[in-house]
């Protein structure tokens, strides 16, 4: 479920009080939103509270949910706004800076046994991804793992699309150099 028509369908169901549809939305996006929020809060309990707030707002305003043009982007923007408000209350404004975000992407190969990848190469990729600069890693994660478009990423983070393009190019270049290294040493 990641196509616009899927979101329209799920919105219709939720507007009609369908808890199963709501659960499906929650389960699909919980971990992704939690990873995004965690990057700013660095606190597990607070993260859970924030993501829970994001979803309860969706449920509370379900009668008007169909007015939301892009539900997926809405979830992320809402997560960001609630996070920033929380952090402001805690007097930690400076932590809402994109350059201090600490995001943890998934393992490059979640199931290395199934792919034609050596354990060593998998580890190299993972190390390279983790070594990316914070902002670069955040953009890489939002696009590759959360499946946001360049435009959505730009809107969410308040940056230009060409910055997104640049940062993602840098990410790929750095990650690929890890592979090149492995290649040479084999």
């Amino acid at each position, binding site marked *: *479920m990641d196509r616009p028509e899927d979101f329209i369908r799920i919105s219709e169901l939720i507007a009609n009080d369908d808890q199963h549809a709501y659960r499906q939305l929650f389960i699909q996006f919980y971990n992704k939103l939690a990873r995004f929020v965690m990057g700013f809060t660095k606190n597990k309990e607070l993260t859970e509270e924030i*993501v829970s707030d994001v979803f309860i707002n969706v449920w509370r305003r379900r009668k008007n949910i169909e007015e939301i043009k892009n539900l997926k982007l809405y979830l992320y923007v809402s997560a960001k706004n609630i996070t920033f408000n929380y952090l402001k209350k805690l007097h930690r404004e400076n932590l809402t800076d994109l350059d201090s975000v600490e995001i943890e992407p*998934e393992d490059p190969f979640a*199931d290395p046994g199934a792919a034609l990848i050596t354990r060593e190469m998998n580890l190299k990729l993972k190390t390279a991804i983790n070594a990316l600069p914070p902002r670069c890693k955040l953009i890489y994660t939002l696009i590759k*793992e959360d499946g946001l478009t360049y435009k959505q990423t730009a809107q969410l983070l308040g940056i230009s699309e060409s910055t997104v393009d640049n940062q993602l190019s840098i990410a790929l270049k750095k*990650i690929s150099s890890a592979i090149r290294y492995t290649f040479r040493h084999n």
Partner: protein
Amino acid sequence: MDLHNQSQNQFWSLLAKKMSKEATTEELQELHSILLNNPNLHHQADMLAEMWQQFDKNAPGNEAAYMRHVMRYKDEFFVKENSEETLIEETLFEEKQSLIRSIFKRKRFAILSIIVLLVLAAGSVYFLSNKKTEAIASEAISSVATKNGNRTNIVLPDGSQVWLNAGSNLDYNNSHFNKDIREVSLNGEAFFDVVKNSEKPFIIHTKKMDIKVLGTSFNVRSYSDEKFAEAALIRGSLEVTLKDRDQKIILKPNEKISVANEEPKTETKPEKVNILRPDPTHIPQIVVNEIKPSPKYNIIGEIAWTQNKLYFEDENFENIAHLMERWFGKKVTIANESLKSVHYTGNFENETMEEVLSYLKLSKSFNFRIGTDNIVIY
């Protein structure tokens, strides 16, 4: 590396755009020509593309988070109306909660999650008749069906995803699914993306085959009104048991198996057969083929429907009519016998039935008449 800095940056930018599906046709061509001129970049590009496709759709923990969320905002989900149903559900919810709390202090959350989920799934009607039952076991068969013209996406209790094509149905037993094995029955066509769990094999029962997997993605097509049933493996591994032969066949990635739906009348006893390569002189019972993407459209025909594409390659009109009938949900009749054996190739995405037919007409002409729920081709 042979590329100078600027075009190197350009290369990574183009590759990123391609993988995130942001690239325009021109950009794809540009990337292609850079790769042609720099074969040393192929390995990295392939590896990154492979990595890009990997994702763990259902990491554990979110189900539990949902239950904690529901409990945090319990009042908003279990509305106190005068409805008898909601009251009973809520009472039971509280009873279970206190019971479990007294027994398990530490592991409360995890266990409660499981029970509450079952409560929600089983539904309140059940509890009206079985209020005191401790173990929640019910013959809760979940059945998802699509009409012609519709397709849907289902997430199974283990997180596995199923895309169900038109005119199909998928059944599973809610209370048994995910216990020791994960079992579903399919009539029609579905694409499965199964969450890996080597301890609980995933089995799909169809009329002709049982298909067993551990964690993989593949397409199963078993419409009872078609000549062949098929299973096409995209990645992972898959074991097919042919029901009327007691024969097992292991598929490798990018292979598909086709099994004839009709037994030839002459055959009296089912016996083991060798797997045959396609042979134009007769229609074999079982064929294992390699899955090949269409060179013209660069899509895999077997799973084109999951990308909302109506695709057929060198297919006869009779079969295409059948396919369109399911796709658009309108009865299609070919009134002129000689048209049935005409072959067409096509790839459509948002076109209406009329547009598709008008397009096909261009290569070999015919007439058609569109009614409210049927179409006659002549």
